[in-house]
């Protein structure tokens, strides 16, 4: 049933956000620390675990798949509710930060590609 997938996904999110809140409390940043990341790890672990012991039914999977597919539209809605006016007052910084990050990442590809091929044969 679709709701099983949605419920599993919801459980993972609540558990992850809870762990993130507790962790934030523990290290004293008064913020959620990596809650979404923990939720993702939990979902990966649970869905991989279940593929060995009891396979998730396609309908159950579609309950998760739907929300995965809603990712881009939700991000579009998120963009449409941002305080862009305030951001544009220092717009160059955002653009420079983005461009610099891409340039640095592109430059890193050949370096890592060489390391990966040199040490092991994992092609």
């Amino acid at each position, binding site marked *: 049933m679709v709701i099983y997938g949605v419920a599993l*996904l*919801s459980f993972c999110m609540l558990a*992850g956000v809870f762990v993130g809140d507790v*962790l934030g409390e523990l*290290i004293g*940043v008064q*913020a*959620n*620390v*990596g*809650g*979404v*990341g923990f*939720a*993702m*790890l939990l*979902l*990966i672990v649970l*869905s*991989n675990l279940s593929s060995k012991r009891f396979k998730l039914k396609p309908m159950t999977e579609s309950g*998760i*798949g739907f*929300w995965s597919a*809603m*990712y*881009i*539209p*939700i*991000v*579009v*809605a*998120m*963009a*449409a*509710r*941002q*305080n*862009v006016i*305030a*951001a*544009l007052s*220092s717009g160059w*910084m*955002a653009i420079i*930060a*983005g*461009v*610099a*990050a*891409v340039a*640095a*990442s*592109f430059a*890193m*590809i050949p370096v*890592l*590609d060489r390391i*990966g*091929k040199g040490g092991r044969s*994992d092609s």
Partner: protein
Amino acid sequence: MILDAFNAVLVQNGLITAFVFVGALVWVSYQLSARLTRGHIHGSAIAIALGLVLAWVGGSMTGGSQGLADFSLLAGVGVMGGAMFRDFAIVATAFGADVGALKKAGFVAAVSVIIGVVLSFVVGAVVAVSFGYTDPVVVSTIGAGAATYIVGPVTGTALGASSDVIALSVAAGLTKSVLVMIGTPLIAPRIGLNTPHAALIYGGLMGTTSGVAGGLAATDPKLVPYGAMTATFYTGVGCLLAPSVLFLIVRAVL
């Protein structure tokens, strides 16, 4: 009278109205992508850019801080794009990631994700500091935004950054996403991006899912699954590292 009734229906069912609105926005964006750019700029990137433009329009017309969501007719966009649904959808994307496949892909692919997050974060943070920001929360949010337009808002929300700083981080992530889409086919021959191995590393280093999907599709469609797979882990690792370890490092340094 009819118009009032219509208006009332849209306002009372705000979230549903938002689904229609965003659906239309995405459709228009994919049409623009296919017709004006012949698919070179991914439809999702255009949709997000249009969203930011509309947020700017909304902000300048209403004087509010929530972009389009400050129009009562489009208040549902605020719910749909709010933290709850956003985080829910992000967690759902992890479902596609197969740990076994990544393990098989090799240690380097996993390392590339971590290096990619840290590298983009550091570059973004350095740019923020060079523009005169000294608040660790602001610097970390912008650094996280240089990772992806998801890691930025998640980090910003977790650390309590203001909406305008979060918008900056989204803008940085969007710049990255669009640039990855446009730049990948141009630079691919120079950086040896023509094997599954290189594509795995590329996905891990770039991380922006739509950027990687669009960029690889324009370079060599056969490479898409490899890059997309490592990129799937990027946002999760970013959401894990940026508001925690990386923020603590920034706080210690500044």
